[in-house]
């Protein structure tokens, strides 16, 4: 932000930097009405997220492969100045979608509060520069604005990640901000009033245990969109392939993702174990405790890509994915191992074209 780094050298560029050209092209052709402080019209934001080809021939890559309906609902609710809550199991692109929405609407996805069990109220409101506080007493100069406060002042979007991990009492400090769009500062007898364009995108996980459920007062102030797991095998393979390619490019891995077959296999394993039934719906399986979402498949493939690049011949093979695949499935060392072995012996073994994967996984068993 302050120190402008070259996008090429950072490990992971912000969405607005990585897709700067697309955003510019969209802004150039976008002649539809924009809500106050929005960098693009709702139509252009939807196009940016879902992909498409612009009248001038620029092709916009799809960022979210899934139901267009959900993206439209999300954009529409941000346009009504209602806060947006993205719900879903881990790995359903909640954070990914919220980052791109913020980048497209406000031109910046950097105003983020990462929710944890230890998130203090200061993160959602403001803190103090104690040296100045002691020296000069309470003043605006001694105030350290948090991301939410900055977004209110700038009239931009702020993201709250993992909202349900934040303790309930801290969560509730969002209520005034969301309903009255202002942030009182009793110490200074002042308040910050949000500028037009301010809004909150929160993400939350509806699978985790031990989270702090939203109070109904807070929940009422959000429009909720539930992001589902991908419907079909092909769709999920496409998502994984797209993401692994762009990650591989960012990490400068020389390996080649020659065919989709390896991805298809990994995704099939994940889907079958997740759903508890084989893709041909002929046999039921036990499901392990791990979520096995699309994000997990992406990380297994990226790992395989890296193994193939540095220790293999550059092409991803069964050996390269086996280790991380087993690691992704077996989260509970006792129960999940039994489930995995059962799957290996009853399903993987009976698929002739999967012989190499079976052998690779068996070899790992022996090592363990």
């Amino acid at each position, binding site marked *: 932000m302050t120190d402008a780094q070259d996008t090429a050298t950072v490990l992971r560029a912000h969405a607005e930097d990585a897709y700067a050209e697309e955003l510019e092209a969209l802004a150039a052709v976008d002649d539809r009405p924009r809500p106050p402080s929005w960098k693009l019209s*709702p*139509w252009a934001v*939807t196009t940016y997220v879902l992909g498409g080809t612009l009248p001038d021939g620029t092709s916009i890559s799809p960022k979210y492969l899934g139901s267009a*309906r959900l993206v*439209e*609902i999300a*954009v*529409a*609710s941000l*346009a*009504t100045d*209602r806060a947006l*809550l993205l*719900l879903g199991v881990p790995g359903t692109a909640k954070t990914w979608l919220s980052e791109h929405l913020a980048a497209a609407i406000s031109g910046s996805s950097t105003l983020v509060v990462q929710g944890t069990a230890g998130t203090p109220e200061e993160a959602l409101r403001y803190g103090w520069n104690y040296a100045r506080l002691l020296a000069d007493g309470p003043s605006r100069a001694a105030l350290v604005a948090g991301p939410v406060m900055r977004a209110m002042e700038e009239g931009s979007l702020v993201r709250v990640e993992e909202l349900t991990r934040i303790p309930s009492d801290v969560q509730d400090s969002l209520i005034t901000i969301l309903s009255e769009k202002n942030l009182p500062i009793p110490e200074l007898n002042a308040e910050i009033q949000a500028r037009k364009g301010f809004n909150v995108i929160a993400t939350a996980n509806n699978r985790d245990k031990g989270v702090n459920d939203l109070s*109904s007062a807070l*929940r*009422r102030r959000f*429009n*909720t*969109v*539930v992001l589902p797991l991908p419907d079909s095998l092909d769709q999920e393979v496409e998502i994984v392939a797209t993401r692994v390619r762009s990650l591989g490019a960012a990490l400068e891995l020389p390996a080649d993702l020659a065919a989709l077959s390896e991805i298809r296999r990994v995704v099939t394993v994940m889907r079958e174990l997740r759903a508890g039934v084989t893709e041909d719906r002929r046999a039921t399986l036990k499901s392990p405790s791990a979520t096995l979402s699309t994000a997990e498949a992406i990380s297994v493939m990226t790992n395989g890509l890296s193994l193939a690049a540095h220790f293999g011949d550059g092409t991803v093979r069964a050996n390269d994915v086996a280790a991380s695949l087993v690691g992704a499935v077996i989260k509970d060392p006792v129960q999940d191992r039994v489930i995995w072995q059962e799957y290996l012996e009853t399903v993987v073994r009976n698929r002739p074209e999967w012989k190499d994967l079976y052998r690779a996984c068996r070899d790992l068993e022996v090592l363990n």
Partner: protein
Amino acid sequence: MAEVHVLGIRHHGPGSARSVAEALAVLRPDTVLVEGPPELDQVLPFVVDPEMQPPVAGLIYAVDQPRLASFYPMASFSPEWVAIRWALSVGAEVRAIDLPAANAFALRTENEAEEAVDAEPSSAGSPSSLPPSSDDGGGPADAGQSPAAGPGGSPAEPYRPDAIALLAEAAGYSDPERWWEDAVEHRNAGPLDRFAAVAEAIAEIRAVDERPATHPDVIENQRREAAMRRILRSVIREGRERIAVVCGAYHAPALMPEAFPPASADNRLLANLPKAKVAVTWVPWTSDRLSRRSGYGAGVTAPGWYEHLFAHWSAQDETVDVSTTWLVRVAHALRKEDFDASTASVVEANRMADALAAVRGRPSPGLAELDDAAQAVLCDGSPLPLELVYRELTVGPGLGNVPDSAPTVPLAADITAAHRKLRLKASAMEEIVAIDLRKPSQLARSVLLHRLSLLGVDWGTPQDTGRTTGTFKEAWALQWRPELAVAIVEASRYGTTIASAAAACVSDRAGKAADLAELSELLALCLLADLPEGISAVTGALAQRTAVQQDIPALLKTIAPLAQTCRYGNVRGVDVTDVRKILDATVVRASVGLPVACAGLDDDAALAMRRAIDSAQHGLSLLPELPLDDWHQALAAVARSDRLHGSVAGRATRLLLDAGLVERNDVAERLSRRLSVATPAPQAAAWLEGLLSGDAVLLIHDHHLLQIVDGWLAGVQDDAFDDVLPLLRRTFSAFSRAERREIGEQVSRAADITQAAEPTADLTAAGPALRTMARYLGWEVLA
């Protein structure tokens, strides 16, 4: 020259209905022609009857074959309904134009006869195909939107190009419904321009239709349009000045007088068509049937939403917003299901729907936007709460009403009168009615429902009464479905009142019954439906059948219904002397045949035989005065033999034991012999199963028997025990957990049981208690 305006509409399109109303107000025609067979003309005046409540349907059926029927459903938002009402209220003439149903039915029968020759005789196109399939065929389900096949009902047949879908595709819409809504129904142009534009567009579509002229659907459409033109020509000849034609958009280009083919060509098409005799009436219809989900070809996805739209447009109140009122209704329905849906959230949902419509580039929020907004704001993103209210709101619970004066068959009038007398209200939503048979008025309800179901009018379906073993309660699920109207017309050939029709129907079925089981079932139904004449017809048939019946299980199974008739028929005032005679004869016949019939049975046959014996025993136990010597002798013969299948022999032993006709020691002896090592394990298990199956009560309360089993089990040698264990387990696992525990506890107290088994009570001490008990029972205490 007369002025003819063709208004091409979408059936059940509220926007079309509104446009038709506007157009009629501008045109003020003296004659309104509405798409529909001309037979409907005679019942059209009922549309303005104050008692007529849409949704209703015109029902046309072939008099001599009532299953051949067509419905013409109309809702308050159907353009046809609006046009007819307008015409009748201003005194303009209104007529239906289409191919007469008399010809359509006759053609349908002919086609089916041809198909039957070509294909299997039992193909789906047989005349007995269910009424719902005829919804698609003859209903106004033809404006090119109906994906369903024509009257033949064979889905493989390519349908005429879907005109609306092609137009929608050209406009870049994936869903033709939405295109029509956006491009036609939500458009604020003048009504006449709108209809002209639609007709022009459809004409283009029709021009690209490349199907051969011999295609059955093309032929049918040509005939129908020729018939429409013929009526239109005669109306013009009558000298009418201003004529408005309301028809499906697909037919609009064909009905423009300037584009008419020569009259002779049309007459040639319509010459020498076969004819059937038809009758016509109005029947109540339901919103559910209007919805596409129910399989109605020209149905709409959301009748409830369309009704809301139309009511809103008709009210013409600028201050009320259509999406606001809809979302308020959604919120109310959600609250009824115990979801929080605050007023503030409704406001937010309303804004959300507007924003969503803007994002999607639609002129105003449609049902899709309202649903999405409601889901995101009112339901926390979950689709489940909306599904709960889907039926009530989006489809609507509506059931129409038809005035009593509408023409109908006498049986239908009798049924309506009975409904009214018994205060049973027809409803489109399923409701459960509990009936207490001890109250005369409720008993009458039960009788009515049983009679109707005998007649094939399945308005009510019997339900499980829940946790009660009492016989005085019945539960019925009542749901009125429009096709029941056809069932009533069909049943009317049996008689003019419910009682006489049901009795005639029973005699008819008794004459055709395939086997004894069907007859005995009929007998039981007659008893429930209170049909003494039916009973005599069935017993007559039974007497003939039982005399020649060789199959013992079938004979055994008739015993229970016959015995029930004897037992309860008296209560209901039925003369059962004849039934009793048949019962006696049947018992004797079954008893004589039983031992032989039990020989050489395999497992399945033995199971069937055991069930038959059980059912017969159950029936016989209803009539304690019946002499049972023959029966018991037969059972004894079965029980004695070691060569018969264990399941049957064990059962016979048990029945004799229950009747006190076999010594316990004998049972113990048989038990241990049957379970001994030399007997093959499956046979042993079958015997034990036959002896014990059904209820554990015997083992729990008959300590002696429990002792026998316990003693035998303790004596089984170790190596044999391993073989016997799974078989025993099979028998005992049928008992409930509590029963098994009780048995276990009793066995562990085996020593006490031996003591307690002998009554050692002190009678003197029990004296006062016995005396009090006797007083309760009203007995006189002697000492």
